[in-house]
């Protein structure tokens, strides 16, 4: 493989080499942080909901326990399935993990930064989704097919909204680099394009809910397959696969959330420590917010969900126009 790179583009190969050994440590560190912290968000959300409904609720670390329990369990595979069914969770988790490498976490700078990495960011999520949908279809169960269809449908819309938000960000900071866009000169950009960023924030929040299968788009806790979107896709997964999937969705929530937090809390000018503090605070607030939303809203009817997403789309569109007016 290395040889092939060499053959293809010797000059590039050089900086690939030193690039690799320079980024080794940060990458591992970043991955570690993400792996450790991400399930916590789910815990916070659960706790919030419990409190708001006046229950004590599960402990904060419950997601860790669940995943751990699943890691100790064996697998059941349908005779219909092929290797794709087993590979999908792995691909999904790996893609989400790697995508986190492009995302700065407060003081913790993103280990991999390059021009146009948002496209890769989006691409990785696309890959994960592709894998999961295939896995769902692999079981040949009509329910999972239904879930897959819904997932595909909504993801088309969310992806568009996501890109609109990217357009806003990249117009504000004349860059298409994720960490620059979300942190770079956020403060000045707030002066410049405050309203646009607010619109973007709202629409992105809706995308966040939809992508992570939260209420009002989807109810992770429902027990009726007909109404599920995301959960119904993983009905047949068990053991490690299910663990990977849960872990993956936790990380997804974490990464996507951190994007929002990075933007809404402009903290690039502070010291890394303060930055980290504000970041983690922001994450807490975010998960609390999600919890509040979930406990005070009901799940929408399926045919209303596109309307919700299109609403988000319109919001983002207005944001773009505002930016263009400011920018031009």
């Amino acid at each position: 493989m290395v040889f092939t790179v060499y053959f293809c583009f010797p000059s590039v190969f050089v900086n690939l080499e030193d690039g690799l050994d320079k980024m080794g440590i940060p990458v591992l560190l970043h991955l570690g942080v993400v792996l450790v912290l991400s399930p916590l968000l789910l815990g916070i959300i659960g706790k919030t909901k419990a409190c708001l409904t006046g229950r004590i609720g599960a402990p904060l670390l419950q997601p860790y326990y669940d995943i751990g329990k699943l890691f100790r369990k064996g697998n059941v595979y349908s005779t219909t399935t092929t290797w794709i069914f087993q590979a999908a969770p792995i691909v999904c988790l790996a893609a989400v993990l790697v995508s986190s490498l492009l995302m700065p976490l407060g003081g913790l700078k993103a280990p991999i930064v390059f021009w146009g990495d948002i496209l890769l960011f989006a691409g990785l999520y696309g890959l994960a989704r592709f894998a999961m949908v295939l896995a769902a279809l692999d079981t040949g169960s009509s329910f999972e097919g239904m879930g897959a269809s819904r997932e595909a449908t909504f993801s088309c819309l969310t992806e568009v909204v996501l890109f609109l938000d990217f357009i806003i960000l990249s117009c504000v900071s004349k860059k298409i680099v994720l960490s620059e866009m979300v942190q770079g000169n956020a403060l000045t950009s707030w002066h410049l394009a405050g309203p646009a960023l607010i619109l973007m924030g709202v629409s992105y929040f809706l995308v966040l809910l939809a992508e992570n299968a939260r209420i009002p788009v989807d109810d992770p806790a429902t027990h009726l397959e007909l109404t599920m979107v995301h959960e119904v896709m993983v009905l047949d997964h068990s053991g490690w696969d299910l663990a990977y999937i849960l872990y993956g969705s936790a990380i997804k929530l974490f990464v996507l959330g951190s994007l929002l937090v990075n933007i809404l809390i402009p903290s690039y000018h502070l010291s890394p420590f303060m930055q980290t503090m504000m970041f983690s605070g922001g994450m807490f607030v975010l998960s609390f917010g999600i919890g509040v939303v979930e406990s005070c809203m009901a799940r929408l009817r399926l045919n209303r969900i596109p309307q919700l997403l299109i609403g988000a789309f319109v919001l983002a569109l207005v944001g773009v126009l505002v930016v263009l007016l400011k920018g031009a």
Partner: protein
Amino acid sequence: MTFLLYSLAVLTGAVFLMALTARFRRISGNIFLFSLVMASVLGLFSAISVLVSRAPVDYHLNFRMPLGEFFIGLDSLSAFFLLAITVLFFLAGIYGYAYLKDDHKRNLSVHFVFYHLLFISLILVVAAKNAVVFLMAWEMMTISSYFLITFYHEQKSVRDAGYLYLIAAHAGTFCLWVMFLLMGQHAGSLNFDQMSMSAFPDTLTGLLFVLGVIGFGVKAGFIPLHIWLPHAHPAAPSHVSAVLSGVMIKMGIYGLMRLILIIKIFPEWCAVLLLLIGIISGVGGVLYALGQHEIKKLLAYHSIENIGIIALGMGIGLWGQLYHNEFVALIGYAGALLHVFNHAIFKGLLFLSAGSVIRSTHTGEIDRLGGLLKYLPWTGHLFLIGAISICGLPLFNGFVSEWLVFRALFEGMFHFKMNAIVFSGAGIIALALIGGLAAACFTKAFGAIFLGNSRSIDNSHLKENPWEMCAPMAVLAGICVWVGLFPFTMVSFALGAASSIYPIKTSPIAAGTIISPLLMVVVVLLILIMAIAVLTLLKRISMKFLAIEKSLTWGCGYSHPTNRMQYTASSFADSILRIFRTVMGYSVAKGSSHVVEVCEEFIFRPVFQVIKFLSAKLKIIQCGYTQWYLLYIFVFLLFLLIWKMV
């Protein structure tokens, strides 16, 4: 160049030999394979040699023709297209030989002859340096591809599809005639070089551009000129559809790029037009594709979608050119070119594997298939690779070219004025939407065909197709992975070709700023692969200690699930189609979401109706009464007398 001439010579000789030995299948078949290999290798050599040393080569045939001279040559642009042509023709040819081997009632050598003729004419199209040679090759391409399409001409549907293709292509050609003649008249010569020397007035360039977009767009399949495409591709044998959709429709793109190369300055709305066409064709193509349930028809619509993506790249590139922004122009064109190559590869792969599905199961109806991955492992996995590539997902080649196009659009937003920003923004959104929909469409296709259980037909007797068919597909898949993981060679080639469109010296810095991010992409992808490996390893290890059981799919409490209860492709696509129904204006029929073509129904059919009606009405002229006939003559005479004498 000599290599190219040799390969042309080989092909021509083979054509005559096969025509002579038409009676003896074996001999002509061997001639076909041999000449195919020879010619492709030679063509590949010439293409690569030109691409590496970016020095164009020319060849004059000292030979007088009524207008223009016989003048062919290769520059980076032609060489890039030549690369795609030779690779795909080589592989598809071998596949086709194996695909048709068992068909004993037809005379294959005729088919092979036309295959070679198409090969020759495609090479000539990209190599032509003179408008007349170009047009000749263009027409030969049309006619030979027509006979390839109508291989199964016993079926009426196939004949109609071929007829539609033929008339659409020929009608488009008239626009090209006028366009080239106008250019030649203005430049004083029909050679492309002299044309590119001379400067054209603004009004003329606009007209030429429109003519070019119509004439070339028919071939390329821009919406709404695409009507022939979804009919023709399914009608043809699979390797032919692979070639058609892989390279032949790209000749339209090549022609447009050549046009841009020759006339450098356009009015601004041309770029807008190109971007709009890109958006409409891209989104429309993929939406129509979602509604299809015949695999090759679905793939055909995806060709339209990818042509749309290419047009987006060209549009933004043209815009950059008009604003004298080399960087954007370079990335845009490079993205478009690379996508041309990539689409040739993965669409070829998809059509070939679809063909092997059809060859084994004798049906292309997605809703009747299912669970083939177990029975056609090679076909299935190769199709999967093609599917991921065409969705533009990382790890495969589609991602690289779409990355370039995306990047060009973003750069465009930074560098341009208001309206440009609006359009490139629209382009970005469209591209994002296309990505999502394509993913949906191919999860649907792959899932319904290869996963789950078979819905109608009995899989048990199916077996994998011979290796002569799998090997070409495997090679194509290999190219997908290679370009996806190590894009540098192809990207640099594409950059070279792009810089020949917009004649600036690609500064190494510019190249670096384009290449190095891709390098980082590669790094991330390598990390991704490592992560996957690690996770798999962990799971493997753990599986040693944990129990694994097999059972049926959980029926959610339903007691007697059957295969026919699986979620079908129609129902999968239905939810998306319902959202976009109003947007596209197509009608989703009850029951199965069958999609009706808007342009075909509401634009072209009425036109034909009008023509038919008029001709039917005017047939009264020949009423049968001699007296009337004599009267015509007399009236005409009087008319002339009064017109000319009085």
